[in-house]
């Protein structure tokens, strides 16, 4: 055990056990997000100080177990094995003791010092659940500290225990399985110790269990030890014959039975509260008919609030920039410099004035709904519909984010279980109109053609996204698993946690999307200065004029739209030489419809392209651009014919 240098703590727990709440309670705003090396699996880490001792706390993603099927779980296991971890805090949801214990048993196999934070004790009490903490400690051989993270209860005692465990370096006991399984584990462990002990810092017993579970990562580690593989294979076959289930299920069954036994010994359920709050609320929220009314109301209020908060904020933030932009020409005489500074300022204004006022309320309200426990229920209600798109309920959450801004939406696709759903969602999200494109729809369609047309635009957009989902679905070989998701109990979210989560998202936006906005606008300034827009119009005129029947001068607007969606409006008025309000003098109603249709679907803004490249690589990014262009052109052309 290293004596000096920060103590490395890893927080491990199942989703919704309050792990991040605990992390935020002990660490606060200093947390930064980073990735497990070489993966897109994100975790947050931060440094803190307790009684003069420095701790590096790592909040790993929530996992139900440490198997290699799920990428996030596999990376968490590898992290715990390969990275420097001095002590593991296993955060457990006291209301789901027996299932949480299944993960605890797997963590005990790691043979690293451990402390259990038995979290949500207040909820357990309200559900009439009583847990004998001392007895649990004796059985597991690990200190168990009752905590209520959301109120910060038990944290001091938790850290006192951590210091004690670090000093003594006590390691958890290993649990023993039923005889028929235990004999084989012991025998295999013996062989592992003989053959490869010391080669990997993996406890031999954990290695043996993983081989019995036929875990690909561990089988691969020993591929040049045939006798070991043969023995493991032999025992797997024997277990399957004796018990009648495949070996991985048997090992899982062992842990399940042990957890059930421990839970029964330490847990007493005083009175089964007949109708808990969850039952009462879910009777309406999850009702096959009522549920959808509530869903519609929630999201009407959700978007109403966003645009109600967004609009005045936009006004407030952009006015100083407008004043600045107007006096700029008198200050700067060198024309090129003027255009570039003008572009830079517009980029900054775009970030502050247009995206942030809508982006912050959206992310805040969404994390509020998430902490409340309502988002997983939205995933349930939307599952049937999402299936039409070849996806499933869980991917509705990134799509909702997409209406605010595509950048966090693409980042949010990370929560989806498998690669196939992630890529398909990432390809579809840019087709969802972000707040910038929504302002274009309101400014043009709603203003000139009336609100019913605007409503039609949104419904038609959902139809096109669903259709594209169905079509693209065919290209994927592996079928989607379908929805399989825990529905957590309702909790009143703590505003501090919601603010922290919002701040983390905004930080990501500021570091990635905003710089791209600013650079893009500066480039625009240069294009305007050298009035290359004439040539751009030429290049684009076949598409713009012949296919879509729009005035050729509109070509430049499309380019500027890529650099920044909100610029489409500004550039449109400049290109056509009139204010936004009088566009209908220059463009017919049909042309407005075709133009807005095209802008809604075509290439997403440069920030979205940036994040798709970062998250999914060049190939997927090119497909996304191609998809956006083709869909926009086809839709634009169809509307040119029928309108």
């Amino acid at each position, binding site marked *: 055990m290293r004596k000096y240098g920060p103590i490395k703590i890893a927080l491990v727990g199942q989703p919704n056990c309050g792990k991040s709440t605990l992390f935020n309670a002990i660490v606060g705003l200093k947390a930064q997000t980073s990735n497990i090396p070489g993966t897109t699996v994100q975790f947050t880490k931060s440094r803190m100080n307790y009684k003069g001792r420095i701790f590096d706390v790592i909040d790993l993603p929530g996992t*139900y*177990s440490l*198997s290699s*099927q*799920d990428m996030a779980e596999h990376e968490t296991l590898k992290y715990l094995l390969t990275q420097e971890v001095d002590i593991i805090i296993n955060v457990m949801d006291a*209301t*789901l*003791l*027996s*299932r949480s214990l*299944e993960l605890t048993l797997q963590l005990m196999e790691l043979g690293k010092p451990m402390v259990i934070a038995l979290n949500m004790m207040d909820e357990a009490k309200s*559900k009439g659940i009583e847990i004998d903490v001392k007895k649990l400690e004796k059985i597991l051989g690990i200190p168990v500290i009752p905590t209520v993270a959301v109120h910060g209860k038990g944290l001091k005692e938790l850290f006192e225990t951590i210091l004690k465990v670090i000093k003594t370096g006590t390691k958890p006991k290993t649990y023993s399985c039923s005889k028929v399984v235990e004999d084989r584990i012991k025998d295999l462990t013996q062989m592992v110790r003989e053959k490869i002990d010391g080669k990997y810092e993996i406890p031999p017993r954990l290695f043996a269990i993983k081989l019995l579970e036929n875990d690909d990562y561990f089988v691969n580690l020993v591929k040049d030890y045939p006798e070991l593989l043969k023995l493991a294979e032999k025992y797997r076959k024997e277990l399957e014959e004796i018990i009648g289930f*495949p070996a*991985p*299920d048997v090992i*899982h*069954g062992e842990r*399940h039975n042990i957890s*059930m036994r421990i*839970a029964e010994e330490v847990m007493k359920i005083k009175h089964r509260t007949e109708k808990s709050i*969850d*039952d009462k609320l*879910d009777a309406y929220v*999850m*009702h*096959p*008919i009522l*549920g959808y009314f509530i869903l519609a109301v929630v999201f009407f209020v959700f978007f109403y609030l966003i645009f109600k908060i967004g609009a005045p904020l936009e006004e407030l933030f952009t006015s100083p920039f407008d004043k600045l932009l107007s006096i700029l020409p008198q200050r700067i005489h060198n024309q090129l410099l003027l255009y570039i500074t003008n572009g830079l300022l517009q980029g900054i204004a775009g970030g502050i004035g247009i995206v942030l006022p809508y982006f912050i309320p959206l992310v805040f309200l969404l994390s509020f709904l998430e902490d409340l426990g309502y988002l*997983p229920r939205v*995933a*349930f*209600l939307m*599952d*049937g*519909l999402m*299936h039409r798109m070849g996806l*499933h*309920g869980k991917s509705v959450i990134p799509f909702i984010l997409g209406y605010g801004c595509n950048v966090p939406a693409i980042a949010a696709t990370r929560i989806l*279980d498998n690669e196939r759903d992630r890529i398909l969602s990432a390809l579809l999200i840019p087709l969802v109109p972000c707040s910038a494109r929504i302002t274009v729809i309101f400014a043009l369609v709603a203003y000139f053609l009336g609100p019913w047309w605007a409503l039609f635009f949104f419904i038609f957009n959902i139809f096109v996204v669903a259709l594209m989902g169905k079509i693209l679905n065919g290209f994927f070989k592996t*079928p989607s*698993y*379908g*929805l*399989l*998701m*825990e*529905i*957590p*109990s309702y909790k009143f979210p703590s505003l501090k946690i919601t603010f922290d989560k919002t701040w983390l998202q905004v930080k990501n936006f500021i570091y990635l999307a905003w710089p791209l906005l600013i650079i893009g606008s500066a480039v625009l300034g240069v294009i305007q200065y050298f009035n290359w827009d004439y040539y751009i119009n030429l290049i684009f005129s076949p598409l713009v004029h012949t296919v879509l029947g729009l005035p050729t001068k509109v070509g430049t607007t499309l380019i500027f739209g890529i650099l920044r969606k909100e610029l489409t409006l500004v550039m449109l008025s400049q290109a056509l030489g009139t204010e936004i309000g009088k566009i209908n003098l220059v463009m017919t109603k049909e042309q407005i419809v075709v133009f807005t249709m095209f802008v809604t679907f075509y290439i997403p803004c440069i920030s979205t392209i940036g994040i798709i490249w970062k998250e999914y690589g060049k190939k997927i990014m090119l497909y996304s651009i191609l998809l956006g262009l083709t869909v926009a052109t086809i839709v634009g052309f169809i509307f040119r014919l029928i309108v």
Partner: protein
Amino acid sequence: MFDTSITSLIYLRPGTRAKVVSFSGGRNARMRIMQLGINPGDEIKILSVGPFGGAIYIENLTNGTRVAIGRGIAAKILVKPL
């Protein structure tokens, strides 16, 4: 000899209770279901069924977990109504 009362989860109406018997279907789906806390022998209650091919919302009465399961996977969960 053959227990005819065993059926698939998707045929049960909201409100009914059942005991999980086994899972047909691939190793991945099976393992994910069990990790979420639904194991053979558990008693479950169907709370709600989403319309137009929607998911099924169940509560595991044995360990208290509540789970939403897509139709595809739910079809592979064999249960015995109680």
